[in-house]
């Protein structure tokens, strides 16, 4: 087992491509995306209105070595600032196979 950081990012669906690109640039080994996560936050309810497509969030999980964390955080912070969203970092063990 290898200690890693679990980074969870929740942003507007439309921002997700940018976030994924930034993760790639940061050189993460991979990520997992769960589309249409609905939710609520400072910018109100995000009901995932299917008709207009507005108001839908996406959830991404990436596990990476702790030294990458700061780089990732700094690169996505502007997006969170401008478009809102959430980023959580926690500890985990990666099962090396």
């Amino acid at each position, binding site marked *: 087992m290898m200690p890693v950081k679990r980074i969870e990012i929740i942003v*507007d669906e*439309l921002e997700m491509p*940018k976030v994924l690109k930034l993760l790639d640039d940061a050189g993460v080994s991979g990520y997992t995306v769960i589309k*249409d996560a609905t939710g609520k936050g400072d910018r*109100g309810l995000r*009901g*995932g*209105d*299917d*008709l*207009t*497509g*507005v*108001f839908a969030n996406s959830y991404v999980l990436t596990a990476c070595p702790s030294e990458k964390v700061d780089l990732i955080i700094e690169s996505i912070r*502007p*997006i969170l*600032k*401008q*478009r809102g969203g959430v980023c959580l970092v926690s500890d985990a063990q990666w099962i090396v196979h």
Partner: protein
Amino acid sequence: MDFNLLIGNFLNPPILFFFLGLLAVFAKSDLEIPSPIPKILSLYLLFAIGLKGGVGIAAGGFQTQIVITLGAATVMASVVPLYAFFILRRKLSVANAAAIAATYGSISAVTFITAAAFLEKLSIPYGGYMVAAMALMESPAIIIAVLLYRLSSANESGTAFSWRELWRDAFFNGSVFLIMGSLVIGVLSGEAGAKALKPFTSDIFTGVLCFFLLDMGIVAAKRLGDLKRAGVFLTAFGILLPLANAAVAIPLAFALGLSQGDAFLFTILCASASYIAVPAAMRLSIPEANPSLYVPMSLAITFPFNIIAGMPLYLAVINRIWS
């Protein structure tokens, strides 16, 4: 105005299903059209109306009338967002004013489709090129609104801005692309293609429209709450601007010698507000604008107003003037 039109419109199944959708929310029923069905229904409607228009054009052949109509459409689609913006600026931030201006400068395909079904029910003919007019009117307002926004706001904050992206969102977004594509395919495949597709694109069309408007009713009713945030000014704006646009569009259509059917559709296009193409574009190009202002305005005020009161009103006026 002509009350038979109003009643006739009321008893039109699509409108009745829109009411049923509103009612479902008010009655707290758990009735809902699960995602992604509404999206696919709207793709179907664009697909069908596009083909219908294309076949119509192929049948009608080229006429100067077409050029005139498309020209007028483009002009209106560029003028409306301009004057809307300056009205809105009195009360709103640049970002919100620009986004709402784009919303009202652009058009609502479903309003157009409902209006076309209304004409067919009354067996009033209209030109297939009106579908092209609709497609043409979707994009200019987006470009203009973003221009206004970037000129009148020094803010170049955060993420870089790409004109190419904006251009793409404006002219190649899913709905514009599908309408235009189906239109061209309709022209290319002509009669033969039309016959093979008729059962899918025409026969079941009204039924699908009912289903879709049922969902529109549900969504509109759910968004009504947001109107508190919008306030009196924007609520009134959502009704008065369409009327103002119609008041400009009808005489213009008459001056240009459009047929009654074409004039009616032209008016509905000017009076309608976008809730699909524009919100998507605005979120990317004017993120500072608040979607819970411009979405409910077009969805919960202008759309219902147009299909319930607007359509019979505009048509009554047109009948007066043309006869």
